[in-house]
């Protein structure tokens, strides 16, 4: 039976059999549609990418204020377009491994303090020049400049010296960091000629597409770069286009009407409707992003661990996952790490337990209602989530007062200022990055005011540790500490939900970011 199916799927891939016929035959052989479909896409991948055509994406997250300067990338559209024209030093593969791009090899000294990047030969910029070690060094220098507004500045500050010599770039760090290669995969660090010091927003790098159109907030377009160094892997369509469609309904309609081939951010509540549209495939997969309620550990009444524990036990995670995310996510466990991170260890799942919550609440001695601030912009469904939290807490005898704040100014006036509010995190590529960004005492974004010298020491020790098994154990201990003593209530990790239209092939789920970590337009192709 399976031989026949495989034969048929190869026929579809080579265009000798229609997809519908194939599914019919598969059904006749007693195979479920899901399995048949997966077989089909596997066969298409095996048959190899099809060159040519125009791939279009309709994306939310673009504004007329966007710039082509990679240092200033914040939202999804510049991010995704950057992956089209930009080339990275190193990138994360869909399997979570490091994939060398402009750096052919990365090595470190035994103490993880001095790192050497060997620059690949024959990689060409769009302007015809060859990528040199000096360009890479200048790029890193620009992003570590205190005056620069680079989104990568936070970790780039940890680099003490950057030196280019011959084909190598040598980085000396202030503190040992075993994760440096992962940090270099940050999407801001697009290698530019002379590091972009001459013209930061020129849109020139060594990526698979050359910038042809750049109308911020409207559309961005590119044509295939003939001299791309790994043209067999990426850059299948002749042209790519990103159309900015911030309205969710318009985005879905554009996909249904066939004006775009893929969209990002399908709302969980309409996924089931979209699924039924012929030709449309929902591409949902989990990532490190999560939705949270955050308490300031140094502000009354949240400075009492019993009260924090009471609130952690008084939230019904399963209900929230089902109602707010419609199941498109996974349960959170009050620490910001999940299986999307390397070196993750499972910890016993915390459950909704009104009785235990009641016990801890009594022990805390707190009386009266607790103010929880929320807003539509905190995360999609944050207002509903806060109300669900209110109801589940009420059953444990805890009174939450929900205050809805205006979305405008939420990030400047409420988040990281008020002691208890809803928020979200997009996640980082390594555990060290996540903990350093939001859980170190000195971190600007320590939005739970989790200030523990013993924890800080653990972060630094884990960062310098090159032995994976030891590191894994350290991260486990840190996770337990944040989970049981921190100010983070993490009910759920959200999934990326993208969708593709008819004939789009070559999709591979990537846990790091939506749209195959931004590469969907370059790595997918249109079936002939």
């Amino acid at each position, binding site marked *: 039976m399976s031989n026949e199916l495989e034969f048929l799927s190869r026929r579809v891939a080579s265009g000798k059999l229609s997809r519908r016929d194939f599914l019919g035959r598969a059904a006749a052989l007693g195979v479920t549609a899901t399995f048949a479909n997966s077989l089909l896409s596997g066969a298409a991948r095996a048959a190899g990418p099809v060159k040519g055509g125009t791939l279009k994406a*309709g994306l939310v997250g673009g*504004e*007329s*204020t*966007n*710039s082509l300067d990679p240092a200033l990338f*914040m939202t999804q559209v510049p991010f995704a377009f950057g992956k089209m024209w930009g080339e990275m030093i190193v990138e994360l593969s869909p399997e979570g491994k490091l994939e060398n791009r402009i750096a052919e090899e990365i090595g470190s000294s035994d103490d993880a303090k001095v790192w050497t990047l060997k620059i690949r030969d024959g990689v060409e910029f769009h302007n015809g020049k060859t990528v040199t070690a000096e360009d890479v060094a200048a790029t890193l220098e620009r992003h570590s400049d*205190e*005056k620069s*507004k680079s*989104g990568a*500045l*936070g970790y780039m500050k940890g680099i003490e010296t950057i030196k280019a010599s011959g084909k190598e770039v040598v980085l000396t760090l202030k503190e040992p960091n075993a994760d440096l290669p992962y940090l270099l995969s940050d999407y801001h660090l697009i290698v530019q000629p002379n590091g972009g010091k001459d013209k930061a927003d020129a849109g020139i790098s060594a990526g698979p597409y050359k910038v042809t*159109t750049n*109308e*911020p*907030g*409207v*559309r961005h377009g590119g044509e295939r770069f003939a001299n791309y160094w790994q043209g067999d892997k990426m850059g299948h369509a002749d042209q790519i286009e990103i*159309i*900015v*469609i*911030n*309205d969710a*309904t*318009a985005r879905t*309609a*554009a996909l*249904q*009407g*066939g*004006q*775009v081939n893929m969209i990002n951010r399908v709302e969980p509540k309409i996924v089931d409707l979209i699924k039924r549209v012929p030709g449309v495939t929902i591409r949902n997969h989990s990532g490190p992003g999560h939705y949270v309620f955050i308490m300031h550990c140094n502000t009354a009444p949240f400075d009492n661990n019993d009260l924090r524990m009471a609130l952690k036990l008084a939230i019904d995670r399963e209900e929230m996952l089902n109602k707010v995310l419609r199941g498109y996510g996974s349960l959170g466990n009050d620490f910001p790490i999940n299986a999307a991170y390397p070196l993750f260890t499972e910890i016993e799942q915390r459950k909704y337990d009104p009785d235990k919550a009641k016990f801890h609440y009594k022990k805390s001695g707190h009386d009266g209602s607790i103010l929880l601030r929320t807003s539509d912009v905190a995360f999609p469904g944050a207002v509903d989530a806060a109300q669900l939290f209110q109801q589940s807490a009420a059953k444990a005898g805890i009174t939450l007062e929900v205050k809805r704040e205006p979305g*405008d*100014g939420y*990030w*400047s*006036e409420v*988040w990281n200022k008020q002691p208890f509010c809803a928020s979200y995190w997009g996640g980082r590529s390594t555990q060290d990055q996540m903990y350093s960004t939001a859980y170190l005492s000195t971190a*600007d*974004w320590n939005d739970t005011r989790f200030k523990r010298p013993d924890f800080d020491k653990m972060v630094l020790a884990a960062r310098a540790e090159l032995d994976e098994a030891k590191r894994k154990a350290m991260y486990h201990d840190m996770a337990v500490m944040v989970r049981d003593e921190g100010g983070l209530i993490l009910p759920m990790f959200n999934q990326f939900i993208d969708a593709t239209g008819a004939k789009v092939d070559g999709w591979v789920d990537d846990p790091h970011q939506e749209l195959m970590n931004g590469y969907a337009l370059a790595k997918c192709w249109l079936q002939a």
Partner: protein
Amino acid sequence: MSSPILKLIAQRIALGILLLLAVSVLIFAGTQILPGDVAQAILGQSATPESLANLREQLGLNDPAYIRYFRWLGGVLTGDLGTAMSSGQDIATSIKGRLWNTLFLAFWAAIVAVPLAIILGLIAVRYRNGWVDKLISGLALASTSFPEFFIGYVLVYFFAVKWQIFPGISTVYDGMPFGERMQAIALPATALTLVVLAHMMRMTRAAILNVMQSAYVETAELKGLSAFNVIRKHAFPNAIAPIINVVMLNLAYLIVGVVVVEVIFVYPGMGQYLVDHVTKRDVPVVQAVGLIFAAVYIGLNIIADIAAIVANPRLRHPK
């Protein structure tokens, strides 16, 4: 043309300019009251005190508000709208394309909407209180009562998703062939037409009906003119002033009130441009766009005023 008319027109224009200045102060004050500042808005969740201070210094946000206001006003008077704080692009250049797009859409919506509204109004008067009148009024009122986004989505659902006649997203760009451009704006122009239709139609109907009560119309009827000729030759010219007024108001709406329609159809006009920059607290852009909107509004109102004066013999020949 007599001098009183010129004087009246000059007065209107002077008043308009004063009004514009007042509006610019209001807009500036409004943008100051918004919570947070542009540096905070640009950096968003990623703002650290350090990067905030750097950016504020770079953007000159540490000067007092009135100095920033006059600096900007001086620039505007010399034709320099400044650069956008958030992206560093020249505002005048980016606005030019956007304004052109908005005007293009408004123009085609008006070309359809104005004659259609007036003709429908005339037909409604001709068959007043009959079923034709009631049908026209009913449909027009219904289309106006639905919010724009609802009409927009209904149009998208049928014309773009179900039948796939017109594109659901109206992205237009420089160098787009005229035919494609027209196809792209078909749906937003239809939505706009439906939104403004009833107001103009009802006003035409009311104004003409009002005139129809007068003695000279009765005379015209008695001398044997057909019903349409009575309306065309005697009633319409006398009812034109209020009709022009309402047409101008609606034209202004087509230009300054299209934010929602632009967002739904992803049309790169002024509305979207404004919304993007309001969320970024980009004061120069918000002010420039606000000022242009105000100028359009005031300008069209002046035109309506002047047209009403010119159309009215009593104002044309004051005693």
